[in-house]
C-alpha cells in the first residue's frame, strides 16, 4: 500500500527545481519509480509530494557533443541497452544496461533515477566512475558539473543539493585504443559486488581507472589498485592483476550485509577485477 501523496508535474527544469526548493524534504523527484515506490510501499520513506519529471523535454536521448556522449537522465535502461550510439562508443555500458535487474525494471527505470537514488547495490555508478563521467546538475538559474567520483557520497546520498535536478550524464568518448569492462556477481536480486575497469592500451597499459561498487555504501574509485597496473606492459599488468585485486578489495570499504560478509566481498572484488581486466584486454 502506498500512502496518499500529491503529484506535481513540472514542464521545465526550472519549475522542477523551484518545486524542490519550495517543498524541501517533503517532496521527492519521481521518474521511473522502480526504486522509490518500493521504499514508499515499505514505509521506509514518505513524501507529501512526488515531482514527476517525465514531462521535462530533451532529457530522454543519447547524443554526442564536444567529444562526449551525453545521456539524458530520463533515458530508461531499455532505451540505453538498445541505443546504437552507446553500443558503438561504450559497449561496456550497453552490456551493463542489458543486465540491470529484469526486463520490467529496465522498461521504466531511468539511469538518472538509478544514480540519484544511490542504492548501494546498483550497477551504473561504478562503471560511470571508471569511465570518468560527469553528472550535470541544474537548478532554476545555474548549472554545474559533478564528477561521478564525487557524486556518490554515501548509501542513498549524493552530492546533489536539495533543489538541484540531475539532467544529463556526460561520458567522454573513449579513444580508439581505450578498453573497459564491468562485471558483477551476486546471488540475490541485486549484485553483491560490481567492478569496473577502464584503461588505454598502447603496447602498455595507461590511464587506468578502477571502481568498485555494491561492496560498501557507495561506489568508489580505488586508486591503490590503479597504481599497481598503471604504466605496466600488458604481460606485467597481467602478472600484477591479482595483487591489484587484493588492493581493490581492501580499498573497497566493503561491509558485511545480506549480500555477503566483508571478507567474502573483498575476495570477490579481486576475482572480478582479474576477470574484468582480462575481458577488457581480449
Amino acid at each position, binding site marked *: 500500500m502506498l*500512502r496518499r501523496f*500529491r*503529484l506535481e508535474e513540472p514542464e521545465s527544469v526550472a519549475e522542477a527545481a523551484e518545486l524542490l526548493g519550495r517543498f524541501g524534504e517533503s517532496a521527492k523527484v519521481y521518474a521511473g*519509480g*522502480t526504486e522509490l515506490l518500493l521504499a514508499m*510501499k515499505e514505509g521506509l520513506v514518505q513524501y507529501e509530494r512526488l515531482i514527476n519529471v517525465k514531462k521535462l523535454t530533451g532529457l530522454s536521448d543519447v547524443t554526442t557533443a564536444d567529444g562526449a556522449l551525453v545521456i539524458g537522465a530520463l533515458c530508461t535502461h531499455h532505451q540505453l541497452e538498445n541505443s546504437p550510439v552507446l553500443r558503438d562508443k561504450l559497449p561496456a555500458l550497453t552490456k551493463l544496461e542489458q543486465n540491470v*535487474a529484469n526486463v*520490467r*525494471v529496465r*522498461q521504466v527505470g531511468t539511469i538518472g533515477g538509478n544514480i540519484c537514488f544511490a542504492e548501494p547495490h546498483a550497477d551504473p555508478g561504478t562503471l560511470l566512475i571508471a569511465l570518468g563521467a560527469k553528472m550535470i546538475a541544474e537548478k532554476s538559474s545555474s548549472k554545474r558539473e559533478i564528477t561521478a567520483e564525487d557524486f556518490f557520497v554515501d548509501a542513498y546520498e549524493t552530492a546533489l543539493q536539495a533543489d538541484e535536478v540531475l539532467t544529463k550524464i556526460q561520458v567522454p568518448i573513449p579513444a580508439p585504443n581505450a578498453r573497459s569492462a564491468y562485471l558483477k556477481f551476486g546471488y540475490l536480486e541485486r549484485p553483491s559486488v560490481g567492478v569496473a575497469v577502464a584503461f588505454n592500451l598502447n603496447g602498455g597499459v595507461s590511464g587506468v581507472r578502477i571502481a568498485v561498487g555494491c561492496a560498501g555504501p557507495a561506489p568508489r574509485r580505488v586508486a591503490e589498485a590503479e597504481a599497481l597496473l598503471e604504466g605496466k606492459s600488458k604481460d606485467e599488468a597481467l602478472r600484477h592483476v591479482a595483487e591489484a585485486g587484493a588492493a581493490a578489495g581492501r580499498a573497497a570499504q566493503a561491509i558485511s550485509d545480506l549480500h555477503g560478509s566483508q571478507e567474502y566481498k573483498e575476495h570477490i572484488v579481486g576475482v572480478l577485477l582479474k576477470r574484468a581486466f582480462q575481458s577488457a584486454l581480449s
Partner: protein
Amino acid sequence: MAKAMTKHSDAQSIPVSFTLNGRLQEIEVEPHELLLDLVREQLGLTGAKRSCDVEVCGACTLLVDGRPVSACTTLAFEVRGRSVLTIEGLAQDGKLHPLQEAFIEHGGFQCGFCTPGMILAAKALLDENPDPSEAELKHFMHGNICRCTGYKKIIESIMAAAKRMRAKA
C-alpha cells in the same frame, strides 16, 4: 464506482483515458493508486497476481504499449493515453493466442499462478524477436519466476508458440 465514495475530500484526482484490452476506459485515479489495484479491484480483471510486490517475480506483469511492466509498482496514472493488455485480452473472438495454446499443449504450468505474467512477458518477447535463441529467451524471461515447473516446460511452450507464430506470419 463504489470506490469513489471512499475517496478523501482533499484527494487529488487525475483523469486517465486509456485503452484496456482494446476498449477505451475513462476513469479518475488518485496519484498513489497502483495499476495492479486499479485492474484487479476496480476493473475486476484478476489475471495479474500480486505476489512478491517488489518487481522481482513477474506475476503482476501487464503489457503497456506492448512492453512488460510490474503492475504492483506502477502508478495507475502512468497509463494515461496508453494501451494496456492483460491476460484477459489476449484471446481473440474466443480463440486462444498461440502462446496460450502452446502452454496448454506443452504443460507450461502447474499451479498457474505465474502463467498470466509468463505468457504476457513471452508475448512481448516474441513481438520484438519472433525467432529468439534459447539464451535470448532465458535472458528476457529471467524476471518471471515459476515456483513449480523448473522452467523446462515453459521454455518449450514459448519456443513452440514462436514456431507456430512464425509459420502463420
